[in-house]
């Protein structure tokens, strides 16, 4: 991936888009973002992170959009991610763990789809990325499904799911979650009905309490290795260095060349190994890490794991139907004998991985992991 940070045009250029964003936000004349320390507001708009009006989503002042080198797969939903800190206070940089954001920080992730039909019928599709430009995003042809809010309070992070209404004007708190019947049309025309799951507030923790010893909700995407990429929002600058320049993060970032960096899973110029490990990291390692909720399985899918811990020739522990009749997590050279691939392909709730947040197979992700396993040498004896 090209790293285009301190190029000859200098730092000044990085600030132009921020100014543009600032101007765009001011013209909308909304109240500023707020962290709502004492209550869980009923409506998403109460947070004032962005406004939806006349088919346009407009970010509020000081709200920063971001994206990840390789994102979590969520039934092909597109995602708009934002972060806001009170008074623009900085987060503490960390090379490995999530950045240390100050109390009052609000992170949002909005899930939306391109509609497969002119009028809304529940039919969705997927294809090109679509996101904010200069702080605003046109919603024509898109359907907002839900927005998940993480707010950093004195006691830690709180997770709150909001579900968008029929006329797309407002999202309402649904702490019990929801299931939405949708139909996915793949680009080649195949259609399949599926049940889109909005997690309940406890299920948010099923992924975000990634350390099962503390059970505290943590940020997953806001880590150096996911954010260290060319900025989508301020091209051609590096997203992390842009944040450093804008003051959103502070701390010793060290040698920029040594900042951890995950590959873009879809970047065919990157190595198969780097793409597959980035994919497994973001989709699996929040549970499958040495202290995660899935350490009960003995399977570790963080970028540094190897051998049986990563699944090579490893027998399942408590997989049940998740074994899919296969003996090993990874059978080197044989994706069709590897439990990892089966669990990604199946849509049986009792067998599939991840356990939550996926109802359809990510065919392109399955193909990547299968190719990675196919290229492995050796056997299980």
């Amino acid at each position, binding site marked *: 991936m090209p790293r285009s940070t301190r190029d000859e045009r200098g730092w000044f250029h990085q600030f132009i888009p921020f100014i543009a964003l600032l101007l765009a936000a001011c013209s909308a004349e909304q109240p500023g973002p707020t962290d709502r320390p004492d209550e869980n507001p009923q409506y998403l708009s109460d947070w004032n992170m962005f406004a939806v009006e006349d088919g346009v989503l407009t970010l509020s002042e000081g709200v920063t959009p971001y994206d990840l080198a390789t994102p979590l797969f969520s039934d092909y939903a597109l995602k708009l991610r934002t972060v806001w800190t009170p008074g623009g206070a900085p987060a503490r940089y960390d090379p490995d763990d999530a950045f240390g954001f100050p109390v009052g920080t609000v992170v949002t992730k909005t899930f939306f789809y391109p509609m497969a039909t002119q009028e809304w019928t529940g039919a969705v599709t997927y294809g090109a990325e679509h996101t904010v430009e200069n702080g605003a995003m046109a919603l024509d042809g898109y359907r907002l499904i839900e927005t998940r809010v993480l707010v950093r309070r004195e006691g830690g992070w709180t997770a709150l799911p909001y579900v968008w209404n029929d006329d797309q004007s407002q999202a309402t708190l649904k702490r019990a979650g929801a299931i939405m019947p949708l139909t996915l049309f793949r680009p080649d025309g195949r259609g399949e009905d599926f049940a889109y799951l909005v997690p*309940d507030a406890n299920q948010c923790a099923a992924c975000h309490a990634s350390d099962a010893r503390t059970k505290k909700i943590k940020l997953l995407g806001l880590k150096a290795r996911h954010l260290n990429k060319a900025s989508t929002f301020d091209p051609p600058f590096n997203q992390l260095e842009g944040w450093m320049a804008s003051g959103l993060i502070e701390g010793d970032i060290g040698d920029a060349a040594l900042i951890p960096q995950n590959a873009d899973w879809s970047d065919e110029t990157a190595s198969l190994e780097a793409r597959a490990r980035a994919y497994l990291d973001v989709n699996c390692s929040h549970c499958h890490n040495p202290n995660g909720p899935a350490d009960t399985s003995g399977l570790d899918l963080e970028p540094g794991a190897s051998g049986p811990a990563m699944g090579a020739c490893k027998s399942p522990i408590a997989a049940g*139907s998740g074994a899919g009749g296969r003996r090993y997590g990874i059978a080197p050279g044989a994706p069709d004998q590897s439990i990892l691939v089966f669990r990604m392909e199946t849509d049986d709730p009792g067998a599939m991985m991840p356990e939550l947040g996926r109802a359809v197979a990510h065919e392109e992700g399955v193909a990547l992991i299968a190719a990675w396993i196919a290229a492995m040498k050796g056997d*299980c004896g």
Partner: protein
Amino acid sequence: MRRFMIIAGALALTACGQDAETQTAYASYQETLAIELIDAEPGDVIEIPEGVYAFDRSLSLTVDGVTIKGAGMDKTVLSFKDQIAGAEGLLVTASDFTIEDLAIEDTKGDALKIAQAENIVIRRVRTEWTGGPKTSNGAYGIYPVQVKNLLMEENVAIGASDAGLYVGQSQNVVLRHNRAEKNVAGIEIENTFDADVYGNVATDNTGGILVFNMPNLKQPGARTRVFDNDVIDNNRGNFGHEGTPVATIPAGSGIVVNSNDQVEIFDNRIAGHRTVNIIISSVYSSGLSQKGMSEDFDPYPEGIYIYSNAFDGGGKNPDAVDLQALRIAMFGPLGALPDILWDGFVDPEKLEDGILPDALRLCVQNGDAKVINVDAPNEFNAPRVADGDHDCAHDKLPPVRLTGALEMFNE
């Protein structure tokens, strides 16, 4: 409770803006209970009245100190027959938790999973797949894993495609007066330290009671006492998922110890198992890849002590080609395998002058019950009935004492 009613009311009002289909999907007791679990505070008792309640997605609890109580395992039924999301029925990741007097039926995955917690009581809970034993049933009925200080009593588990009652990677466990039937494994204790398994009935499973150690986990296991259980006629054909460890259990296995250490089996009534009443084996007999094991894993069952059990029948028709051939060769077409079968794997590095030290031996003091060493390490070349090899005794393990708030439940 009042706090909860207000929230439910607000949700009901705001739901009016949703399309009708979405609304019916979650306008039910499902949402009521989900919110009650989310809003629970330590000390809360969530009572679920008599009735059958349908859920289409899994429930979870993350708050310590909560009790969930139904009106009885045949009266309060949480049915997941139409489940479309979630890997279990109820997932609890909280300590000081008690659940009693209800049933969880027909989950897509595990029925009740309790993970990474302390001080847990599971009492008079029934987990069942009502369509009978099938491979498509969920894996585990009641599934505590990484739990410290655990009491499971008077539960009933039926139809699990792995284990009905399964305790994994736990410590200080009492599992008593439960009933497990029509599962692949009736009761399974895995990678667990200090478990007392007594007064249970395991019948009509593929294997009755299993005490296993699996590789690649954070802790091995040792010190399980299996006593005063009725382990009867566990001859059900194995319907486990190929690839899972229990899928290798031959139908008609009474009690199986695999790679676990210091297991004491006594005063049980063990009868009618077509393969054999007790199997002591190494993970090498389970067909696992040695390349897929963490290097520090100890695959040998050591310090096993079997005494004073009442055996009846068994061993007449083993569900394994090698064992069937061996039975006929050694005992004739109408003969039976002895009550206790050992696969014969010993750790070569622990031998002293070619002999296993006393503390690691398989010891049997069980009247006229015989032990057969099938010589699995040498492809069953020299199987032998060798009681003299096992005429030894180990120090008896102390009873498991529940601690803290569970101390009052010690018998």
